[in-house]
């Protein structure tokens, strides 16, 4: 999946020409390092600025400025932050709300696996680097051709994104308090728009679309009857359900194929 994100982020966030990076020589030369930094900053700045949307959404959902800022400082994985804030605004209990955010964050473990091999970080650095293991840093690192460029890309993306995401969270939260009624400005649509923007590039095959549709039906269907925060966890079951049905279909097909060859 990180490969998909790599393509998506490199393509979308840094615009056309991102793929036309100059060929690095044996090691990353001066120009190549410049290109890595440019790509990394492009992603870091574009996504970092969207911390503003998070700050506004958090404050509009009833969180204090301090709570919004602590989330960005300590959680630092956008989708989970938006999910938590949305679940709390809906009146979910803190543990169901945290569970939804946690499940969204589990993909970072798989990014970490890839990065661990790619970056070959010293043991002492890992606990610090871990905080920056997110969609964007993984995408930029995986797009590089050698270890030293990957390390540079990871560091520059992580640093620029972390600094900007936190600064804009603060500005957004303060701004929302000054604005007052954030809904009148349409700012309650920022959260779902962020989710949709993250979701869209993932819907590549029929499997992903089936999961999305089933999750949508479960998420909305159970909303009126289950406590806040729980329906989204029920909707998460769409993933194993679709995999199970697909696996059965494949097994049935291979069984008939075997029958035919016999």
């Amino acid at each position, binding site marked *: *999946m990180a490969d998909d994100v790599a393509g998506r982020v490199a393509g979308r966030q840094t615009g056309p020409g991102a793929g036309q990076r100059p060929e690095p020589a044996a090691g990353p030369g001066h120009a190549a390092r410049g290109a890595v930094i440019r790509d990394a900053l492009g992603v870091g700045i*574009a996504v970092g600025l969207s911390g503003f949307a998070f700050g506004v959404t958090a404050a509009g959902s009833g969180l204090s400025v301090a709570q919004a800022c602590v*989330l960005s400082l300590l959680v630092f994985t956008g989708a989970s932050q938006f999910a938590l804030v949305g679940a709390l605004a809906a009146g979910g209990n803190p543990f169901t709300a945290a569970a939804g955010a946690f499940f969204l964050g589990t993909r970072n473990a798989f990014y970490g696996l890839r990065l661990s091999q790619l970056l070959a970080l010293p043991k002492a650095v890992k606990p610090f680097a871990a905080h920056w293991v997110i969609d964007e840093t993984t995408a930029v690192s995986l797009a590089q051709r050698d270890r030293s460029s990957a390390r540079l890309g990871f560091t520059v993306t992580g640093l620029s994104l972390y600094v900007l995401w936190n600064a804009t969270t603060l500005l957004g939260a303060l701004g929302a308090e000054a604005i007052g009624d954030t809904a009148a400005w349409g700012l309650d649509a920022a959260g779902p728009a962020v989710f949709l923007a993250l979701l869209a590039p993932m819907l590549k095959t029929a*499997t992903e679309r089936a999961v999305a549709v089933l999750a949508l039906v479960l998420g909305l269907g159970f909303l009126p009857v289950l406590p806040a925060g729980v329906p989204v966890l029920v909707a*998460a079951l769409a993933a194993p359900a679709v995999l199970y049905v697909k696996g059965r279909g494949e097994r049935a097909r291979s069984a008939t194929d075997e029958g035919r060859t016999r």
Partner: protein
Amino acid sequence: MNVWIAIAVTAAGCYLVKLAGLLVPAGALERPLVRRLSALLPVALLAALTAQQTFSSGSALVLDARAAGLAAAGAALLLRAPFLVVVAAAVAVTAGVRALGG
């Protein structure tokens, strides 16, 4: 207080899961089923969250200006607009529809 509990649990959980990826030996999570599930889990969660935060108010299903905003975001995505433009389109259209009394 509840909000701070949720923040603490989320921060700890999200950090540990990131760290786990860097620390576990390669191959431990590389089983095909685990990989496919981990790729599909965000799809399910994001789809449900998008729908819920667009079409609900508390525990009631509603259709309001946010639906128009989300449609605008969808159109922007189809036009391959950058992330910030997608979000801005949703916000602007939602505000516009509300201002018109939608």
